[in-house]
Structures are given as C-alpha cells and as structure tokens.
C-alpha cells in the first residue's frame, strides 16, 4: 500500500489531463457504456484497463468486499441494487460485490465476516442506511472476521439516496454507484488504526445533588463504582425540597427525596460534598482531573480537594424562570405570584384550613396564566436581560398548574379558579387526569393565542378593593370574544430556564442547544451522551423534564457511565491528528491553530539519531477537529480516519466518469 500524498507528487510541468468527470447525465447509458468498456478492456489484455494498472501499482493486494443493502425495499424500491453491484464489481480491487436484503441481520453480518475469512478480503464497504445506525455494527462484523475495523467504509444510500431521490431511480442508482466508488477510493488510502487505549479511572463525579444526581449516584454505586457527589447547596434534593405533593403519584416530595438521600447515605461507595463547587475540570474520558472547593468543613473554612475520575455526570438541574419586573404586574402587585411561590404557599397552609389567606387577605378568586417565560415569540415577548427568548415549552407547568388548581378547588371549594392557556400539555402518563378532574371540579378555562397574551391590569376600583386584578383575554373557546375576569390573585405559570453553569460549560467544552440547556449528541439515538466523551447528562440540566423523566434519564446516564467502566482501559476512536515525522520540520504552524491545551506541542525528540524539534499530538487531549491540518506547509499533520488524501480520493470517486478510476491524479498531482 502506498500512502503517497498526491500533494507531494513531482510532476511539476506536466499538462493537466482533464478527460474525466465530463458533464453528462445519461447515467443509464453511461453505466452500460462503462460495463462494456471494462469488459472489452479486460479481454484486450495485456493492455487492460489503465485504471486497473494504476491501481495495481498503488496497492497490489487490495481485495475489497462491497455489500449493498436492500433494506427490505427501502433502498431497492428506488435504487437498482443489482445494477449497482454489477457496476462496482468492475472497479479495480473489488473482489466481491453482493446484494443482501438486510445486511444488518445476523446472516448479513455473517456474510461479511465469512467473506473476509474465505475470500481474503482486506477492505469492506457496506452501502446501507445512515452511518449513525449501523457503522458500529459493521465495524464489529469486520472485526469478527479478523480485519482491522478501520479498513471499513460506510456508504449511506438510504437516508441520502433512496429516500431522498424517490422519484429519480436512475439518478439514485448512479449516485449510489458514485458514492460507493468514492468509498472504494478512500479505502485505497486507509491504513489500519488502533483504538486509542488509556487507563480508566473507575470513579465517577456527579455534579448536582438534586433527584437526578442522587439517582445517578446511587445507581452507579450499586454497581460497585465509586462516586463523588458534589452539591453546591448545603442540602441534597434540589428543587423537590420546595414542592409539596408531586404529580402524578401525589407522594410528598420530601419522602421521595428522603428515599434517595437514604440510598445515597447508606452506600459507602459514595462520597458527598455539600456546599461545594467544582472549580476546574480538565482531561478526558477515563482521566478527568477535577478540583473541588468545599465550604462544608466544621468551621466553614474553604477546603480544596483534587480527584481523578473516569466519567462525569452533569446533574445541575434548572432554574425557575423569574418574570421581569412588571411582567404581568409581577413585583408591582403583591398578589401576583410565580408558580413555585404558589406551590410553596399551598404547602405552607395547614391541612384543615378552610380559607386561603395570603398577606392577611382572604383569597376568593385565583387566575392561573400558562406559559409565562416559555414558548416566547419574537416580537411579542421581551427577551431577558441576556437577550434570550425562551421559545421552548417548559413541559411541567401545565400539569403543575392543573394540580394546584384542582387542589384549590378541592380544599377551598368557595374559591373561583380561572385558567388561561394557549393549549394544555399534560403529556405524561396519568397527567391528563388532572385536566379532566380540574374541569369536573369547576375550573373555568380560557384559551388565548400565543401572539396575544392576556392583559393584566389593576381594576379601576383599584387598590381600595384588595388590590384586585382584571385579566382580559381574547378567548378562542368562545370564538375570539374579548372577556374580562376579575380576580384577587394571579399565579404566573413560570417554567424552567437553564442553570448557571457557564464556567463548567466552558471548561468542559460542552455544547448547549438553542434553548441554552446542555445538548445531547442525538435526541433519539444518544440521548444522555454529549459530544465530549465520558460526560453524560442527567435530568433537567438537559432541558425541562418531570420527575419521572428526570429519574429515567439519570438511570440511563448511570448505566452508560457504568458501561464505560467495564474495561481496564478506555478505547477511543482514533480520529486524532497524527504527525508524519518524515515530513515534519517542527515549524509549529499547526500548533498556533490548536485550541485544545496540551493536544499539540513542539517537543524535542530523536529522529534518525538526531535531536530535533517536532510536533507531537497527545491523543488523549486532541479533539480531532483538524484545525491544524490545513496550515502545514509540508502536509505533515493529518487527521487519522479523515485524511486529506482520503477526501481527495472520494472527490475523485464522485467526479470521475469511470467508476473507481482516479481521475488523472498522477498528472495533476503537483506539489
């Protein structure tokens, strides 16, 4: 195999050959022509296909297996898979090209590993669904066949071909051929890669001791993993400490918290640090170095603690939205409360109370207003001071409002309850019952349009009359009639906003979504992982969730973390920068482009018996962005698995007219 980088060719003055990749669309005829051409060339040996020759020089031993998936009919209903197989079989180096109904099935995967063994394949391409679904699956199959998994290339002919070009079967077929031929081109330039192995420290850091952190910690410790639980407050439990009975179980929140806190306290594997803050985080999966500052000492003195952990679970929770001054008269009128304030008010009132008394006044009518600080619209709502508009739904306020409305009607039947919503989102199991029950209990519902939120004013009678408020709404339930309701208490259904963890986000290089919450890699396929390996998300740090969802996410994060500890060492995809010492001159252009501390450095080393300065990559710290690659005047640094020459070859595969033939590259490869 040659790893000649074609930027390094020597043919400075040769003319450019430009016969490949000519414009033209008649792909059917094109494919037939190519097959015909290749056959004739094969017959007319010794002057066989130039491409074959050129390829032979490059890599005499290539035996590529290509597997094309029908995906039931998902692919083959559009793409002529037989024709694809027939065509790619002609590409030099392809030893076998097979069509399978489900390559991901057991028999499908066996075909691949068997062919590697019995047909001596040394490269494999699978053309199937998106790599996010089965790239790992097929790398596994390839490894089981005894081949290095990085000699495998995945081609997406479902999401990006058959499903995207349903009404253009000929075009889809031609695109599939080109994309496979691009993959084959890349495989001519790949070398085996080893996963990066690093020691794995079997200890987890959980940041945040709300229910998410408590659950994650106790699940992890239950699997025998040591946990360091760091809580910034002087108490565990998070927001649940403030709520009374929680939906849908109507269990007391404090009981729930107590259960979890006891489980954590009982477990010797867990070390809890209260009134503590994670000051710095560095390192990588299996090897994070953290510094914690703690005020929990006997006399409140600051203590510093350093630890090495293998995984970090972010369970820092949410903050409740605090309305801006004057927003729906909040902080202007004492009778305007937020939902958390109201929940706490209800909780503080004794069970046998017959009246709801607030600020020494008897409450007779309460209005609840949904979506305050959530589902905000550009042009309708004022952005908060940091310029953010919360366009998301906080998901827990609807059910909490209905729960509280129902509680008011049940405990104080004399109080009138009015509910102003855009729609009711009681999405979770058992939550819809609150709506049904609240309706039956006489809660009166109004529906407003998000673009026209209700107007809240002090009634003309004003302060004299108990600070009464009037709420005016264009009510969709009465076909847009403008209605006004007088109440003496207004509860703003405030939702959740992201926690204040900017320092951690920056240090750990975490991604945040448009909503400002921590962002997962993929909402469906990898819901609790983040782009930084070894860091997991638990609970509302990731976005609004109810208790059930929070605990489910925390459990999932714990299992993910536990599975990371299953091995002595951590294995990372080797997609990191690599320096070619035969080219590097130690000029450090690359180093200036790297934003990851310690990832890329100039060090002294011995090369060919001489001490010289050369670039060196720390594979554990390199994020694999490749920022360094572009600037090297010697093309001495490249990104493993995603090298420039591999991309060049893929472009050739796409642009070339003869599938698999590198498009005059030896002629244009001027350096």
């Amino acid at each position: 195999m040659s790893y000649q980088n074609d930027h390094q060719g020597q043919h400075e003055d040769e003319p450019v050959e430009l016969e490949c990749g000519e414009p033209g669309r008649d792909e059917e005829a094109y494919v037939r022509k190519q097959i015909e051409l290749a056959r004739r060339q094969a017959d007319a040996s010794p002057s066989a296909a130039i491409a074959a020759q050129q390829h032979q020089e490059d890599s005499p031993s290539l035996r590529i297996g290509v597997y094309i998936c029908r995906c039931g009919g998902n692919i083959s209903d559009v793409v002529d898979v037989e024709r694809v197989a027939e065509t790619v079989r002609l590409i030099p180096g392809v030893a076998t090209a097979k069509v399978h109904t489900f390559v991901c099935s057991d028999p499908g995967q066996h075909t691949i590993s068997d062919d590697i063994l019995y047909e001596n394949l040394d490269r494999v391409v699978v053309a199937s669904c998106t790599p996010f679904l089965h790239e790992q699956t097929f790398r596994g199959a390839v490894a089981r066949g005894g081949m290095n998994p990085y000699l495998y290339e995945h081609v997406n002919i479902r999401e990006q071909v058959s499903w995207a070009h349903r009404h253009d079967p000929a075009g889809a077929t031609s695109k599939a051929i080109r994309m496979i031929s691009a993959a084959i081109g890349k495989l001519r330039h790949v070398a085996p890669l080893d996963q990066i192995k690093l020691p794995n420290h079997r200890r987890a850091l959980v940041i945040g001791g709300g229910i998410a952190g408590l659950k994650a910690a106790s699940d992890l410790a239950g699997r025998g993993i040591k946990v360091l639980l760091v809580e910034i407050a002087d108490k565990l439990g998070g927001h649940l400490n403030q709520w009374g009975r929680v939906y849908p179980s109507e269990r007391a929140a404090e009981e729930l918290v107590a259960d979890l806190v006891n489980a954590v306290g009982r477990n010797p594997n867990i070390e809890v640090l209260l009134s503590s803050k994670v000051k710095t985080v560095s390192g990588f999966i299996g090897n994070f170095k953290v510094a914690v500052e703690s005020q929990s000492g006997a006399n409140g003195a600051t203590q510093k603690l350093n630890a090495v952990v293998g995984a970090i679970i972010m369970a820092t929770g949410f903050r409740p939205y605090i309305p801006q001054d004057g927003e729906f008269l909040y902080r202007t009128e004492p009778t305007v409360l937020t939902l958390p304030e109201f929940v706490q008010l209800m909780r503080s009132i004794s069970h046998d109370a017959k009246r709801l008394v607030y600020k020494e006044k008897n409450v007779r009518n309460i209005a609840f207003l949904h979506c305050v600080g959530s589902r905000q619209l550009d042009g309708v709502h004022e952005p908060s001071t940091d310029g953010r508009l919360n366009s998301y739904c906080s998901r827990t306020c609807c059910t909490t409002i209905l729960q509280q409305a129902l509680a008011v009607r049940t405990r104080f039947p004399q109080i009138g309850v009015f509910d102003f919503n855009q729609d009711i989102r009681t999405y979770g199991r058992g939550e819809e019952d609150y709506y049904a029950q609240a309706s039956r209990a006489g809660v009166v519902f109004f529906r407003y349009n998000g673009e026209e939120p209700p107007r809240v004013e002090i009634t003309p009678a004003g302060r004299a009359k108990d600070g009464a408020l009037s709420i005016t709404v264009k009510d969709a339930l009465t076909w847009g009639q403008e209605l006004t309701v007088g109440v003496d208490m207004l509860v703003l259904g405030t939702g959740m906003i992201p926690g204040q963890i900017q320092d951690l986000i920056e240090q750990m290089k975490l991604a945040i979504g448009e909503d400002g919450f921590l962002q997962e890699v993929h909402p469906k396929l990898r819901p609790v992982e983040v782009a930084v390996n070894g860091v997991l998300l638990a609970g509302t740090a990731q976005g609004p969730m109810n208790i059930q969802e929070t605990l489910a996410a925390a459990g999932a994060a714990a299992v993910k973390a536990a599975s990371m500890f299953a091995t002595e060492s951590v294995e990372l995809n080797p997609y990191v920068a690599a320096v070619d010492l035969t080219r590097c001159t130690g000029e450090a252009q690359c180093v200036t482009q790297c934003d990851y501390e310690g990832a890329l450095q100039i060090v002294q080393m011995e090369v060919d018996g001489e001490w010289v300065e050369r670039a060196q990559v720390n594979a554990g710290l390199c994020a694999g962005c490749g920022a360094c690659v572009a600037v090297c005047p010697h093309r001495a640094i490249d990104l493993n698995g995603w090298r420039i020459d591999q991309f060049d070859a893929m472009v050739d595969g796409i642009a070339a007219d003869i599938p698999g033939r590198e498009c005059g590259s030896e002629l244009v490869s001027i350096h």
Partner: protein
Amino acid sequence: MSNPFVPKILVLATEKCAYPGADAVGKAHQEYPSNVYILRVMSPVLFPEDFFLRSYSRGIDGILIAACGSDCPYHGAYDRLAARIDQLTSRMNAGGLEIERIRLTAICTVCIKAFLKEVAMMSDNLHRLGPVDRQLAEQLRRASVERLQASARSRELVPALQGGLR
C-alpha cells in the same frame, strides 16, 4: 455532449449537525436532486484551500460547506473555518473563479428547510454559471499549494540538537 448540463454539487456535511440534517431530509420524505453528493466530515476546518480548488479542477461544480455554525462542538473551529473560507472566496474572486461556487452555511440536525433551500440555491447558481473552468481551478490550486509551501520558514530545518544535549 448533447446532454443538458447537470452540475456536480459536493456537500461537506459535519457529522454532528449537517450530516444528520441531511438524513432528516430523507427521513421526512423530502427530495432534492441526485447530483448532490454528501461527504461526512468532522469539521470542514480540516481542509486546506487547495482541497477545494482541487475538487473544482476534478469537475465538482459547486461546494456547499454545511457546518454547525455556533453549535460547532470544537473550540474555535467555526471561527477559523469562516475566516479560511472568507480567504478562499476572495482568492477565487481575484483569480476569476465564480464565488457562487462556494458557500459556507450552518445546517442543524433538523434543519430540513434550510438544507433544501441551500441546495436549491446552489443548484440555481450553477445552472446559471455552467460548468466550472477546470483549467483555471487547477491553476489556482497550484498557486495555492505554492503559497502554502512558501509559508514554510526560510530556514531549512530546526538546527539539530546534539545527542547528549538535553
């Protein structure tokens, strides 16, 4: 060649954002022309200028760099990318290669409409411009490679240190 011109469009789609975004288009049963070829990249900041010019010289008519924008998972990568593409664009402009052939845009994992819009826009532009001037692209590629090489420091090699000196 009696066939009508069908441009070859290369999309460099980031693995965290635009590639899944392009998947989302297919999953939503939306269609776009089959002459759009998508390559998965970690971050397009990887590519030296000459990679783009080389692609044109090989017959790629337009390149859409579909990145993550402010959602880029790598520190500083997006800003560097933007600066590099800016420079490439002005070099193309100065060299006479139509700058509509390159475009940097951000496509998120669910940005179906944005993806379709960008592809349609590129497609329209390329139909208007016709096939890329491959000879010219090749000239610019060589110039770019030469410039990159010239950025090497004048001294040949870092003076070798003596074996025992450390």
